[in-house]
């Protein structure tokens, strides 16, 4: 169905960096020179898990006349921000910097992407918000990038791909979570892989279709990693937002986690309450794509999950998951729609909450004669 009112918060929207050349002005002198010397400025540096030429990378009516899907600001403003009447939209830029082996180059390009997003996107529309792209290959450099960006309150989360070097909950990554928690930034994890590891536990699959479908189990791996490593005990203020993950796998995941914890918890005794409760408190999921055939089944899934706070509205623009303006699945209650569109995003992102609070205060002030 269409959104019933304006003011929804889109938690997964994909502007694209049009080319590596577009990033060059945002690199320092050394990296500008170095990329030109090696002709790296002519590479796309796109991710093969988000290859722009693939049909699933963009809806046909959302594909610009030229350039990469999501690279045309005016089109995105008209189709997504105005088209869905959004209050805020979080820009998740998928970029190949996170897969480079040269960690310094990766960090320089992540910085350039974040500067580019701030200047070319966030500055152009007050509804846009950013995710901080960090180099997951090196924790110190990732923390430095968070610290560099955190002062700009328009950046509302830190961004990772779901498949990287190692399970993301491991202690080696904790300085990143510490910095994120300190600045009120959830950890956003998007579908995609740096292909450091095979996307299956038994090696490399043959087809792109497998890469695409195997994102869902990778998100389950991620949740289990955060849970068992005790990330949420160590950082009780931290939220984990899974983007483009789907969420219909949750009932069995929650149930199995509780079941196995009962007999195996002594190995990880910091999990001091049923895991499903911890997941419900800390993990959130963007709406699109919805992997349920109809509203009746979707509502049964929410009933099994036992919470109406877990799902955050997303269009996943320009990726194709629904037709026309029907960004919401059918059959949801009015209360659930309100939670998904507005309440859940505001409860998840402290910086959106602050911005919305300040905007409301300003409006009330102006209303007083």
């Amino acid at each position, binding site marked *: 169905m269409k959104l019933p009112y304006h003011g929804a918060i889109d938690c997964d929207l994909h502007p694209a960096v049009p080319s590596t050349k577009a990033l060059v002005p945002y690199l320092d002198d050394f990296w500008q020179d170095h990329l030109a010397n090696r002709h790296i400025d002519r590479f796309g540096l796109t991710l093969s898990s988000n290859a722009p030429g693939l049909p699933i990378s963009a809806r046909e009516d959302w594909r610009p006349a030229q350039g990469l899907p999501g690279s045309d600001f005016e089109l995105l403003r008209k189709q997504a921000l105005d088209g869905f009447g959004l209050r805020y939209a979080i820009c998740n830029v998928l970029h190949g910097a996170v897969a480079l082996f040269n960690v310094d180059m990766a960090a320089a390009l992540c910085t350039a992407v974040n500067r580019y997003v701030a200047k070319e996107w966030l500055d152009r529309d007050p509804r846009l918000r950013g995710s901080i792209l960090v180099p997951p290959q090196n924790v110190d450099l990732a923390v430095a990038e968070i610290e560099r960006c955190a002062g700009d309150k328009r950046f509302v989360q830190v961004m990772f791909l779901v498949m990287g070097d190692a399970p993301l909950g491991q202690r080696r990554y904790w300085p990143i979570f510490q910095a994120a928690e300190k600045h009120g930034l959830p950890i956003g994890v998007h579908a995609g892989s740096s292909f450091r590891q095979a996307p299956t536990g038994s090696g490399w699959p043959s087809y792109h279709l497998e890469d695409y479908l195997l994102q869902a189990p990778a998100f389950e791996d991620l949740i289990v990693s955060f849970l068992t490593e*005790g990330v949420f*005990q160590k950082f009780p203020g931290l939220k984990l937002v899974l983007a483009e993950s789907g969420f219909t796998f949750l009932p069995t995941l929650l149930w199995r986690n509780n079941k196995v914890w*009962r*007999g195996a918890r002594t190995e990880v*005794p910091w999990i001091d309450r049923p895991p499903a409760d911890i997941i419900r408190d800390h993990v959130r999921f963007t709406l699109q794509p919805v992997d349920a055939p109809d509203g009746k089944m979707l509502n049964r899934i929410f009933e099994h999950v036992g919470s109406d706070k877990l799902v955050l509205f997303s269009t996943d623009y320009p990726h194709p998951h629904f037709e026309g303006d029907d960004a919401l699945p059918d059959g949801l209650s009015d209360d659930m729609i309100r939670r998904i569109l507005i309440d859940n995003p505001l409860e998840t992102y402290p910086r959106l909450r602050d911005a919305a609070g300040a905007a409301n205060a300003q409006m009330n002030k102006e209303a007083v004669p």
Partner: protein
Amino acid sequence: MSRYVVAKAGEVAPGTSKLVTVKGREIGIFNVQGAYYALANTCPHEGGSLCEGRITGLVQSDGPGQYKLLRKGEFLRCPFHGWEFEVATGQSYCDPTSMRIRQFNVEVAPGEDVVKGPYVAESFPVSVEEEYLVVEV
């Protein structure tokens, strides 16, 4: 409800248990640091024989990577799925309000009393010189 003599007190040493059958029902008699407890030998989860489980302590943590073993000898792990139960109460650690082992009263009685009754000794030979464990079923 009747009282059954099930063992000599000295037969169940601290930190051990003894499986007895009373009226066809299997009951585990546990000695935790000199205190006796009687629990049904059936895990409330899937019916595992609790007397075959390990007697252990309670694992607690102050945070990731921090491990403490407390209250050694006061907990029992079911041999089927490893669920933990507090011997003194029969309560499960994972779901203490709704998942617990059936408990029975057990006490130590001097042989002099046991010989007099009203205890049911079944085929258990008793003598006035010893102390016995008596379970109420």
